[in-house]
């Protein structure tokens, strides 16, 4: 969806302002927000893609004015209700009023380190052969789905060159909506800055994106 998360190429947000010696968390609640998100996520009731979609469907003004962990918590509040873990009333009062869903995989202390160091690889066996090869000229499709996609607006309709064939991976566009992993070939595609930005692009520089096969057509 063309939400506020798709920021590449926008203007007017001001300087970057890196903070010297920045702490990992700026307040205790930030660490808790991260940990709660990861711990509930460990039940695997939703994919990382559905989690991202929950954040990017925040209204643009809200998305752009919240701090990042606030965006995470706002997304999580939607997910726990959508998946029947809590009711809106429970979320509003902070008190449990209905029996919990039975879930077999609570993340316990002893499983934290193994779970983090294993991660959740999302490469999957290919179901077809790859349509493109390294060096192929491809155009990113002009598309504007209302659903989740990982093709940024600035690349749509632009022509680039396949730099790497990465393998077959879970397709975010279906995975985000409970429509299955539908593995797709993934390519690293390089676009010149001039192709993306016209004369305002930096001559000689480039941007690569990682693009799933359904995002691309032969050019």
């Amino acid at each position, binding site marked *: 969806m063309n939400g506020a*998360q*798709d920021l*590449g*190429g*926008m*203007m007017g*947000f001001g300087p*970057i*302002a*890196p*903070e010297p010696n*920045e702490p*990992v*968390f*700026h*307040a*205790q*609640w930030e*660490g*808790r927000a*991260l*940990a*709660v998100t*990861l*711990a509930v996520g460990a039940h695997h009731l939703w994919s990382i893609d559905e989690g*991202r979609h929950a954040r*990017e469907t925040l209204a643009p003004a809200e998305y752009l004015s919240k701090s*990042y*962990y*606030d965006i995470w918590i706002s997304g999580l509040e939607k997910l*726990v209700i959508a998946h029947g*873990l*809590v009711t809106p009333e429970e979320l509003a009062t*902070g008190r449990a009023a209905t029996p919990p869903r039975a879930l077999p995989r609570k*993340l*316990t202390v002893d499983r*934290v*380190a193994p*779970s*983090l*160091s294993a*991660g959740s*690889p*999302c490469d999957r066996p290919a179901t077809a052969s790859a349509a493109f090869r390294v060096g192929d000229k491809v155009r990113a499709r002009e598309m504007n789905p209302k659903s989740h996609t*990982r*093709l*940024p607006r*600035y690349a749509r309709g632009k022509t680039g060159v396949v730099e790497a064939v*990465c393998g077959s991976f879970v397709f*975010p566009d279906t995975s985000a909506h409970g429509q299955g992993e539908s593995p797709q070939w993934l390519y690293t595609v390089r676009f010149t800055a001039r192709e*993306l930005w016209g004369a305002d*692009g*930096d001559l*000689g*520089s*480039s*941007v*690569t*994106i*990682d693009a799933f096969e359904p995002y691309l057509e032969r050019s």
Partner: protein
Amino acid sequence: MSDEPDHDHSELSEVAARVRALETLLTEKGYIDTGALDAIVETYESKIGPRNGARVVARAWADPAYRERLRTDATKAIAELGYSGRQGEHMVAVENGAGVHNLIVCTLCSCYPWPVLGLPPVWYKSPPYRSRAVLEPRAVLKEFGVTLPSDMEIRVWDSTAETRYLVVPERPPGTEGFSEEQLASLVTRDSMIGTGLALAPAA
């Protein structure tokens, strides 16, 4: 959860309260375990951070065979040093040098290689960097105090899928014979994002 009072600014107390309420509710319903939350916070506060990535870069500088393995299969080469997992399941190392400078961004969210760099800094996740890194990387680099020769090619890597990138900065001159530990001390977090360069050795 903790009973310590929050020291957040008042503008943040609303979200702090929401996080606390959600944690309490989910704990009460048996979905999450307080000890596990503590362990996650502790992991990212004190165990996983850019020192991991610095060791990878130092090894690549010191050992050409390792550098080659990092080029061929970065996930596997990084795992040799004990770093793996969440948000680093599919790693690619991109090397600076030969007239090329690499810069990493995630315009769509905050994708970042956690096992080697830890959690991303606020600026990396914020609209100014995410909007501008792809459009005007040279101006962005200038804000970090990095001015590159005008004929230096900048390659920006937008992390739009599950591949996570690690920049291997150029080894600074004057470091011949340095130990891996000495080399690692020159590798900053920003140099592995591409918004910085490796430090020069102290004279």
